[in-house]
């Protein structure tokens, strides 16, 4: 009897949701290099949602920028239903203001990270500076392009990848790691605010010899610019970059969009979405789909963030906060 009632209830819910085809708008506030990814994801999700929800008319708006800057905008009132940012700290910052529940990272699988990525080198065709690994970045004369870690998530992953490399190469000596990263940032002539800005600086304006880039961003640059001008160099080690996602609780409650916003993020873990993500050069969680795209993702040692740096609030305070290590080592024009 219970079963029948619940089946009836389910049918009623289904019927009512079918009868009430609605106009729904979602805002996904994301970081810089995901523009192309979410354009495709959105189209797939809208089609999927329409099938199960009787022709709801869904619009998903996108906003992109440096991850830190985007986080700040949501804190200042940008009405994001979901945030899909470059690293957990930028979502923690929103949670600290009470807009997202503190336990957000436990609400979805894989610490709310449906796809991962890493930091690679993009160099000019033929690799004139013969850049193979991290130490090559501090050869005299090499100019390195990377965005500002204060505003960009990719830049923070790049910084931490360099740090992790140096730390492990120097047997865990933090002073030596700091010396390496200091030397590295002496080779950086310009810091853009977001990953895409740096890519444009390197690719379009022709500045610099090597771009520290998200793996997906580097592949996209190759695709857009043709492989005859640039090539990707995989260093011996890098970092496992984890860009997480979260529903912005305060906003979905006031927009009455919690159901669809949650479904949107869950959709990111489905086979369909994982395929789109892998095709956009993100290292996805689904082992089968990752295996199908194995050719795009060379196997290199990827250090685990938590193992080396602990948690993000600690890493942020140590390295990127005001007067943190980045402020100590980066002196523009030196």
């Amino acid at each position: 009897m219970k079963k029948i009632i619940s089946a009836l209830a389910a049918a009623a819910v289904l019927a009512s949701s079918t009868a009430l085809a609605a106009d729904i708008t979602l805002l996904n506030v994301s970081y810089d290099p995901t523009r192309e990814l979410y354009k495709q994801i959105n189209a797939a999700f809208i089609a999927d949602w329409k099938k199960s929800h009787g022709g709801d008319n869904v619009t998903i708006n996108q906003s992109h920028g440096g991850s830190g800057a985007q986080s700040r905008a949501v804190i200042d009132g940008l009405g994001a239903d979901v945030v899909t940012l470059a690293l957990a700290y930028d979502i923690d910052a929103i949670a600290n203001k009470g807009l997202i529940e503190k336990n957000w990272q436990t609400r979805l699988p894989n610490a709310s990270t449906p796809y991962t990525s890493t930091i690679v080198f993009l160099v000019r065709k033929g690799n004139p500076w013969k850049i193979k690994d991290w130490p090559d970045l501090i050869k005299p004369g090499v100019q390195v392009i990377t965005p500002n870690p204060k505003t960009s998530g990719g830049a923070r992953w790049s910084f931490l990848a360099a740090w992790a490399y140096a730390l492990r190469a120097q047997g865990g000596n933090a002073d030596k790691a700091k010396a390496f990263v200091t030397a590295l940032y002496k080779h950086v002539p310009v810091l853009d605010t977001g990953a895409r800005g740096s890519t444009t600086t390197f690719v379009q304006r022709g500045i610099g010899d090597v771009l520290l880039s998200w793996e997906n961003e580097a592949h996209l640059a190759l695709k857009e610019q043709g492989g005859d001008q640039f090539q990707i160099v995989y260093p011996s080690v890098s970092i496992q970059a984890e860009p997480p996602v979260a529903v912005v609780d305060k906003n979905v409650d006031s927009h009455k969009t919690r159901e669809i916003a949650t479904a949107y993020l869950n959709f990111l873990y489905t086979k369909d979405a994982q395929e789109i993500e892998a095709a956009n050069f993100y290292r996805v969680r689904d082992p089968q789909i990752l295996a199908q795209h194995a050719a795009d993702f060379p196997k290199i040692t990827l250090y685990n963030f938590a193992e080396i740096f602990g948690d993000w609030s600690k890493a942020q305070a140590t390295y990127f906060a005001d007067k943190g290590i980045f402020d100590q080592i980066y002196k523009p024009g030196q």
Partner: protein
Amino acid sequence: MTRPLAPTKDHPLVRWTLTAVALGFIGLFLVLPLVVVFHDALGDGLTAALAAIREPDAIAAIQLTLTAAAIAVPLNAIFGIAASWAIAKFDFAGKGFLVTLIDLPFSVSPVVSGLIYVLVFGLQGWLGPWLAEHDVKIIFALPGIVLATVFVTFPFVARELIPLMTDQGRDEEEAAVSLGASGWATFRRVTLPNIKWGLLYGVLLCNARAMGEFGAVSVVSGHIRGLTDTMPLHIEALYNDYQYSAAFAVASLLALLALVTLVLKSLLEWHFAEEISAAHHH
């Protein structure tokens, strides 16, 4: 222009050099970049350029830019007239301070102007929580974009009118009032005709800047595609999306809007040349 050249004792070589330098400078820094913009817009052909302008996000950006200008420019015209009227025709305490304040937007970086509104109307700002409670959206929406535009274009009309009206003095208005004209009639039939060219010039400059503003609007926009991206922001987004030709197509349209403004101004000046010089020599 039939005004004779001022007599000069300078060597013709000096004159020619100066002219060449001026023209070369304008050519290099103004004309050449404009030509490049139009040239690159057609990089993928005319059809692609037109498609980039007709694309929904582009249309939304064009509408937003025109809407923001359509609200900001009249507001600043009214404010500009009121302020210059007060400054030129009356004496009051704090006049010098008011003149300085009007110049403020010229000296403050547009980014700072944008941040001011975030600090006031943002969720963590003074009025933010109250606004959120009452579901009023200011920043990351049209009102914020209009506010930022009003702020940065605030001095254009007033700056144009204050010297003009000060120069003209208040004799004519006093005569009109002594002959029994009401305040409104005095304004409409004496003041307005005297200032109309200055006003028009100020409004055109104000409009050009309102449509082109990037920094302040960028801070308060939120960068939502098809919703809060104005034309300059949309151009940046397209450029960063590897859509270079599309970016330059929209940039050409923005440049064209500015050029139309300039041509309009020149046409009016040319058509009413005598009247303008009469007003100036008053």
